[in-house]
Protein backbone atom coordinates (compact mmCIF):
# COMPACT_ATOMS: atom_id res chain seq x y z
CA UNK A 1 0.00 0.00 0.00
CA UNK A 2 1.47 3.35 -0.96
CA UNK A 3 1.37 6.60 0.98
CA UNK A 4 -1.45 8.20 -0.97
CA UNK A 5 -3.72 5.21 -0.68
CA UNK A 6 -3.00 4.93 3.00
CA UNK A 7 -3.63 8.62 3.60
CA UNK A 8 -7.04 8.13 1.98
CA UNK A 9 -7.80 5.12 4.15
CA UNK A 10 -6.68 7.02 7.22
CA UNK A 11 -9.04 9.87 6.33
CA UNK A 12 -11.90 7.42 5.98
CA UNK A 13 -11.34 5.61 9.25
CA UNK A 14 -10.23 8.36 11.63
CA UNK A 15 -13.16 9.96 13.39
CA UNK A 16 -14.04 13.28 11.75
CA UNK A 17 -13.50 16.50 13.62
CA UNK A 18 -16.97 17.66 14.74
CA UNK A 19 -16.46 21.08 13.17
CA UNK A 20 -19.85 22.63 13.97
CA UNK A 21 -19.72 21.42 17.53
CA UNK A 22 -16.17 22.69 17.98
CA UNK A 23 -17.09 26.08 16.52
CA UNK A 24 -20.08 26.40 18.82
CA UNK A 25 -18.00 25.44 21.85
CA UNK A 26 -15.25 27.87 20.86
CA UNK A 27 -17.83 30.64 20.40
CA UNK A 28 -19.40 30.03 23.80
CA UNK A 29 -16.11 29.66 25.67
CA UNK A 30 -14.50 32.67 24.02
CA UNK A 31 -17.66 34.73 24.40
CA UNK A 32 -17.98 33.93 28.08
CA UNK A 33 -14.33 34.78 28.76
CA UNK A 34 -14.80 38.15 27.03
CA UNK A 35 -18.04 38.73 28.90
CA UNK A 36 -16.33 38.13 32.23
CA UNK A 37 -13.58 40.52 31.13
CA UNK A 38 -16.23 43.14 30.28
CA UNK A 39 -17.57 42.88 33.83
CA UNK A 40 -14.04 43.17 35.20
CA UNK A 41 -13.61 46.30 33.07
CA UNK A 42 -16.86 47.68 34.48
CA UNK A 43 -15.52 47.07 37.97
CA UNK A 44 -12.37 49.05 37.22
CA UNK A 45 -14.38 51.84 35.61
CA UNK A 46 -16.82 52.10 38.47
CA UNK A 47 -14.51 51.92 41.43
CA UNK A 48 -11.27 53.35 40.05
CA UNK A 49 -10.32 56.23 37.80
CA UNK A 50 -10.08 54.21 34.63
CA UNK A 51 -11.86 55.18 31.45
CA UNK A 52 -13.27 52.68 29.00
CA UNK A 53 -9.95 52.67 27.19
CA UNK A 54 -7.48 52.72 30.05
CA UNK A 55 -9.42 50.03 31.92
CA UNK A 56 -8.25 47.45 29.40
CA UNK A 57 -4.76 47.22 30.95
CA UNK A 58 -5.85 46.24 34.46
CA UNK A 59 -8.55 44.04 32.91
CA UNK A 60 -5.94 42.10 30.96
CA UNK A 61 -3.82 41.72 34.09
CA UNK A 62 -6.82 40.51 36.08
CA UNK A 63 -7.79 37.99 33.43
CA UNK A 64 -4.24 36.62 33.47
CA UNK A 65 -4.52 36.37 37.23
CA UNK A 66 -7.70 34.29 36.83
CA UNK A 67 -5.84 32.23 34.28
CA UNK A 68 -3.09 31.61 36.81
CA UNK A 69 -5.57 30.28 39.37
CA UNK A 70 -7.32 28.06 36.81
CA UNK A 71 -4.02 26.74 35.49
CA UNK A 72 -2.60 26.16 38.96
CA UNK A 73 -5.64 24.21 40.09
CA UNK A 74 -5.58 22.11 36.95
CA UNK A 75 -8.82 23.46 35.47
CA UNK A 76 -7.60 25.35 32.43
CA UNK A 77 -6.63 22.21 30.54
CA UNK A 78 -10.18 20.96 31.00
CA UNK A 79 -11.58 24.25 29.69
CA UNK A 80 -9.09 23.94 26.83
CA UNK A 81 -10.25 20.46 25.87
CA UNK A 82 -13.84 21.74 25.79
CA UNK A 83 -13.38 25.17 24.28
CA UNK A 84 -10.49 24.69 21.86
CA UNK A 85 -9.67 28.06 20.35
CA UNK A 86 -12.28 29.61 22.64
CA UNK A 87 -9.86 29.30 25.52
CA UNK A 88 -6.62 29.56 23.53
CA UNK A 89 -7.29 32.81 21.67
CA UNK A 90 -8.23 35.12 24.60
CA UNK A 91 -5.36 36.58 26.60
CA UNK A 92 -6.10 33.97 29.29
CA UNK A 93 -4.81 31.37 26.83
CA UNK A 94 -1.60 33.37 26.43
CA UNK A 95 -1.37 33.44 30.22
CA UNK A 96 -2.04 29.72 30.38
CA UNK A 97 0.79 29.02 27.93
CA UNK A 98 3.27 31.05 30.00
CA UNK A 99 2.05 29.85 33.38
CA UNK A 100 1.80 26.15 32.49
CA UNK A 101 5.36 26.19 31.13
CA UNK A 102 6.55 27.97 34.28
CA UNK A 103 4.92 25.42 36.58
CA UNK A 104 6.09 22.51 34.47
CA UNK A 105 9.75 23.50 34.52
CA UNK A 106 9.87 24.33 38.19
CA UNK A 107 11.63 21.00 38.70
CA UNK A 108 14.73 22.34 36.93
CA UNK A 109 14.97 25.31 39.26
CA UNK A 110 13.89 28.92 38.99
CA UNK A 111 16.70 30.12 36.74
CA UNK A 112 17.34 27.26 34.33
CA UNK A 113 13.82 25.87 34.48
CA UNK A 114 11.19 28.54 35.05
CA UNK A 115 13.22 31.43 33.68
CA UNK A 116 14.37 29.91 30.46
CA UNK A 117 11.27 27.87 29.64
CA UNK A 118 8.51 30.30 30.54
CA UNK A 119 8.14 31.61 27.00
CA UNK A 120 8.65 28.24 25.35
CA UNK A 121 5.11 28.35 23.95
CA UNK A 122 4.17 32.02 24.13
CA UNK A 123 7.48 33.43 22.90
CA UNK A 124 6.54 33.11 19.26
CA UNK A 125 3.43 35.23 19.85
CA UNK A 126 5.56 38.02 21.28
CA UNK A 127 8.07 37.73 18.45
CA UNK A 128 5.45 37.95 15.73
CA UNK A 129 3.49 40.62 17.57
CA UNK A 130 6.52 42.87 17.88
CA UNK A 131 7.82 42.19 14.41
CA UNK A 132 4.50 42.73 12.64
CA UNK A 133 3.89 45.88 14.69
CA UNK A 134 7.27 47.15 13.57
CA UNK A 135 6.61 46.42 9.91
CA UNK A 136 3.08 47.80 9.92
CA UNK A 137 4.10 50.97 11.74
CA UNK A 138 7.08 51.42 9.44
CA UNK A 139 4.97 51.08 6.31
CA UNK A 140 2.33 53.43 7.61
CA UNK A 141 4.87 56.02 8.71
CA UNK A 142 6.51 55.96 5.28
CA UNK A 143 3.14 56.20 3.54
CA UNK A 144 2.24 59.18 5.69
CA UNK A 145 5.56 60.84 4.91
CA UNK A 146 4.89 60.28 1.23
CA UNK A 147 1.47 61.79 1.68
CA UNK A 148 -0.43 58.71 0.54
CA UNK A 149 -2.43 58.33 3.74
CA UNK A 150 -2.90 60.42 6.85
CA UNK A 151 -2.67 59.40 10.52
Amino acid sequence: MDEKKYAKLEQEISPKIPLMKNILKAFLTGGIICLVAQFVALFYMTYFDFTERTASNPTVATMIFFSMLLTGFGLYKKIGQFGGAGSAVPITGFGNAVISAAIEHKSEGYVLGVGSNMFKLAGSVILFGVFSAFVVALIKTILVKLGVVSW
Partner: protein
Amino acid sequence: MSSIYITAFIVGGLICVIGQLLFDVAKLTPAHTLCLLVVAGSILDGLGLYEPLIDFAGAGATIPITSFGNSLTHGALAEAEKHGLIGVLTGMFEVTSSGISSAILFGFIAAIIFKPKGNV
Protein backbone atom coordinates in the same frame (compact mmCIF):
# COMPACT_ATOMS: atom_id res chain seq x y z
CA MET B 1 -26.94 48.40 31.58
CA SER B 2 -25.64 48.48 28.09
CA SER B 3 -25.46 46.42 24.97
CA ILE B 4 -21.67 46.34 25.33
CA TYR B 5 -21.96 43.01 27.13
CA ILE B 6 -23.76 41.43 24.22
CA THR B 7 -21.33 42.82 21.67
CA ALA B 8 -18.37 41.75 23.82
CA PHE B 9 -19.74 38.22 23.95
CA ILE B 10 -20.44 38.01 20.25
CA VAL B 11 -17.31 39.67 18.91
CA GLY B 12 -15.06 37.81 21.36
CA GLY B 13 -16.79 34.56 20.47
CA LEU B 14 -16.47 35.19 16.75
CA ILE B 15 -12.73 35.90 16.97
CA CYS B 16 -12.39 32.57 18.78
CA VAL B 17 -14.41 30.89 16.02
CA ILE B 18 -11.85 32.18 13.52
CA GLY B 19 -9.18 30.59 15.71
CA GLN B 20 -11.10 27.32 15.80
CA LEU B 21 -11.37 27.31 12.01
CA LEU B 22 -7.62 27.80 11.78
CA PHE B 23 -7.20 24.82 14.14
CA ASP B 24 -9.64 22.45 12.51
CA VAL B 25 -9.84 23.45 8.88
CA ALA B 26 -6.40 24.91 8.18
CA LYS B 27 -4.87 22.32 10.57
CA LEU B 28 -2.55 24.83 12.21
CA THR B 29 -0.95 24.22 15.60
CA PRO B 30 -2.07 26.52 18.45
CA ALA B 31 1.22 28.41 18.22
CA HIS B 32 0.80 29.09 14.49
CA THR B 33 -2.82 30.13 14.99
CA LEU B 34 -2.02 32.59 17.74
CA CYS B 35 0.87 34.11 15.77
CA LEU B 36 -1.39 34.55 12.77
CA LEU B 37 -4.07 36.27 14.88
CA VAL B 38 -1.52 38.61 16.44
CA VAL B 39 -0.24 39.59 13.01
CA ALA B 40 -3.85 40.08 11.85
CA GLY B 41 -4.50 42.37 14.82
CA SER B 42 -1.52 44.50 14.02
CA ILE B 43 -2.43 44.81 10.34
CA LEU B 44 -6.01 45.75 11.24
CA ASP B 45 -4.68 48.50 13.44
CA GLY B 46 -2.44 49.71 10.62
CA LEU B 47 -5.59 50.04 8.52
CA GLY B 48 -7.29 51.86 11.39
CA LEU B 49 -9.96 49.20 11.84
CA TYR B 50 -9.15 47.72 15.23
CA GLU B 51 -9.87 50.77 17.37
CA PRO B 52 -13.45 51.07 16.10
CA LEU B 53 -13.87 47.40 16.88
CA ILE B 54 -12.76 48.03 20.47
CA ASP B 55 -15.23 50.90 20.69
CA PHE B 56 -17.92 48.56 19.47
CA ALA B 57 -17.14 45.43 21.46
CA GLY B 58 -15.07 46.49 24.47
CA ALA B 59 -13.48 43.45 26.07
CA GLY B 60 -14.68 41.37 23.13
CA ALA B 61 -11.91 43.04 21.17
CA THR B 62 -9.34 43.77 23.87
CA ILE B 63 -9.21 40.25 25.36
CA PRO B 64 -8.52 38.10 22.28
CA ILE B 65 -4.83 37.87 21.43
CA THR B 66 -5.41 40.01 18.31
CA SER B 67 -5.48 43.04 20.59
CA PHE B 68 -1.88 42.30 21.51
CA GLY B 69 -0.79 42.98 17.93
CA ASN B 70 -3.11 45.95 17.84
CA SER B 71 -1.73 47.66 20.90
CA LEU B 72 1.90 47.10 19.90
CA THR B 73 1.18 48.69 16.54
CA HIS B 74 -0.88 51.42 18.14
CA GLY B 75 1.97 52.36 20.45
CA ALA B 76 4.43 52.38 17.58
CA LEU B 77 2.13 54.53 15.45
CA ALA B 78 1.41 57.00 18.23
CA GLU B 79 5.12 57.60 18.81
CA ALA B 80 5.82 57.67 15.09
CA GLU B 81 3.26 60.44 14.76
CA LYS B 82 5.17 62.48 17.32
CA HIS B 83 8.79 61.61 16.61
CA GLY B 84 8.89 60.20 13.10
CA LEU B 85 10.56 56.98 12.12
CA ILE B 86 12.53 56.47 15.32
CA GLY B 87 9.24 56.54 17.23
CA VAL B 88 8.32 53.25 15.58
CA LEU B 89 10.95 51.55 17.70
CA THR B 90 10.52 53.41 20.95
CA GLY B 91 6.73 53.46 20.85
CA MET B 92 6.39 49.73 20.55
CA PHE B 93 7.99 49.11 23.89
CA GLU B 94 6.27 51.95 25.64
CA VAL B 95 2.73 50.60 25.55
CA THR B 96 1.11 47.26 26.11
CA SER B 97 3.32 45.82 28.54
CA SER B 98 0.42 44.84 30.78
CA GLY B 99 -0.19 41.52 29.03
CA ILE B 100 3.43 40.44 28.97
CA SER B 101 4.44 41.80 32.33
CA SER B 102 1.45 40.31 34.13
CA ALA B 103 2.00 36.97 32.38
CA ILE B 104 5.64 36.99 33.52
CA LEU B 105 4.74 38.04 37.04
CA PHE B 106 1.87 35.62 37.52
CA GLY B 107 3.81 32.87 35.78
CA PHE B 108 6.60 33.25 38.30
CA ILE B 109 4.21 33.44 41.23
CA ALA B 110 2.43 30.34 39.96
CA ALA B 111 5.75 28.51 39.68
CA ILE B 112 6.44 29.39 43.29
CA ILE B 113 3.08 28.46 44.78
CA PHE B 114 1.81 25.67 42.54
CA LYS B 115 3.13 22.22 41.84
CA PRO B 116 2.24 20.61 38.57
CA LYS B 117 -1.08 19.08 39.49
CA GLY B 118 -1.50 15.46 38.58
CA ASN B 119 -4.28 14.19 36.39
CA VAL B 120 -6.32 12.72 39.20
